[in-house]
């Protein structure tokens, strides 16, 4: 499990968060929802080592670490595929980048072939990123995320650059894969319905400084039906809180 304890970060005089704590239970899909500019991205920057927090600890499986390099898999809005590698080579990068990885290469390739089959990329291994569509590229990024072979997965708005239909498809894939591989997932999204589709826990964040306003644990099993009153209720509550928060920022 992942614990963030008393994290603080400010840029100049502006405190992004003070004494922020977060607890991620093992094997659950946690989604962070909050107004834009509330500091979600800075939190991810701290977790991934892009930014050094002023205070606080990151604890993974009982051990404090500076950041989650070598611990977490990571996927973001941009597909981040290297243009000089094929889709297959791109997805294999997490295996290749590890020291002394070459002896695992054969197994890794077999695993990749299975993943590519699951997410509908079979036959595109030898294509280059700019020869396929944006949806295909993001699928490949998803395959690469799985090839990290880590128990913890950080998703930074991974689907927000996609069109509605492709996004729906990839949400389905994310769910299937999380169930199958049993990962602990932390995801940022702006899309409340996406949060409701995927999350075991939804954490609603307030801004300036960032803090947890409310936690939701939708009870219905996945895949979910949005017409359930429970969802309409949670969605309405999240929306109204977000609007108040937004007024607070602008006010």
């Amino acid at each position, binding site marked *: 499990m992942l614990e963030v304890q008393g994290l603080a970060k400010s840029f100049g005089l502006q405190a992004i968060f003070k004494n922020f704590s977060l607890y991620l239970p093992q094997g659950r899909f946690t989604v962070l929802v909050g107004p834009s500019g509330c500091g979600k991205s800075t939190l991810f920057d701290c977790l991934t080592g892009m930014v050094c927090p002023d205070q606080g600890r990151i604890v993974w499986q009982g051990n404090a670490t500076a950041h989650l390099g070598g611990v977490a898999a990571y996927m*973001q809005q*941009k597909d*981040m595929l*290297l*243009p*000089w590698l094929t889709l297959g080579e791109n997805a294999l*990068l997490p295996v290749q*980048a*590890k*020291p002394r990885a070459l002896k695992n290469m054969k197994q890794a390739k077999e695993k990749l072939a299975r993943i590519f089959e699951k997410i509908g990329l079979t036959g595109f291994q030898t294509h280059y990123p700019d020869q396929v569509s944006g949806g295909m590229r993001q699928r490949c990024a998803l395959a690469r995320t799985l090839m990290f072979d880590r128990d913890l997965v950080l998703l930074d708005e991974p689907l927000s650059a996609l069109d509605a239909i492709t996004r729906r498809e990839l949400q389905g894939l994310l769910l299937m894969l999380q169930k199958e591989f049993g990962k602990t997932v932390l995801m940022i999204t702006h899309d409340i319905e996406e949060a409701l589709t995927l999350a075991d826990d939804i954490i609603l964040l307030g801004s300036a400084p960032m803090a947890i306003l409310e936690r939701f644990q939708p009870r219905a099993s996945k895949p979910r039906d949005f017409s359930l009153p429970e969802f309409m209720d949670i969605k309405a509550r999240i929306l109204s809180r977000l609007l108040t928060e937004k007024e607070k920022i602008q006010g």
Partner: protein
Amino acid sequence: MKWSDMLFPSALILGILVLWEAFVRVMNIPAFILPPPSAIGFCAVIKAPLIWPHALTTALEIILGIVIALGTAIPLAIFMFARPGIEKGLSPFLVASQAVPVFALAPLLVIWLGYGIWSKVFMAWVIIFFPITVSLLSGLKSCDPDFRRLFTLMGAGFWMKLRLLYWPWALPQFFSGLKVGVTVATIGAVIGEWVGAQKGLGYLMIQSNARLNTELVFACILWLSAMGLGLWALVGFAEKRIMTWKNNSFIKRKDKQ
């Protein structure tokens, strides 16, 4: 390049040559002042047995200069990239070294390194070294920090990132620096030969110039330009072979149209 793209430059060159030829003949200019292009071309071909060994020496100097420059500039650029503190310390010296007129060093180099090829190799090296270092360094530094984060999370160390990410990322800039470098390398070698040499196209030019054999001077210039172009084409060829993904996206774009 398509044939139609070649048409305009070829026509321009041909036009200039025709004008030059006509000018020399109509004005009756003596050949030792300005020989007509036809005579230069003729001289460059029939004097080939004389020019060839000199061209070989100059080519050797340039190629050695390029190889040594690659062998020093690449490690230095990587070192400066790996240690930003060292880059801050070194870059003023690199820039200042470019303010020194290297051609003014040529006589000193002859004193230090002799009349053989090494003073010329050194000149070529000095000239190529800078553009390669600077272009490679800025190529390495231009890498998207989001990619750096991705590779850090993969658990890749500096050398692994260099191999898989920074180096390929820097290649386009590296090659444009190298292209500039190899074309100006000729200048370094020739000036070195002017100052003092026993062989080489620069040496042959000085000798012919003193004898008012202007045709041969021009013939040497023609050979030098051909060598420069050849090197440029060679680098371009290597660039295409190494950065194949550029060709892929090019094909893709053509397919789309």
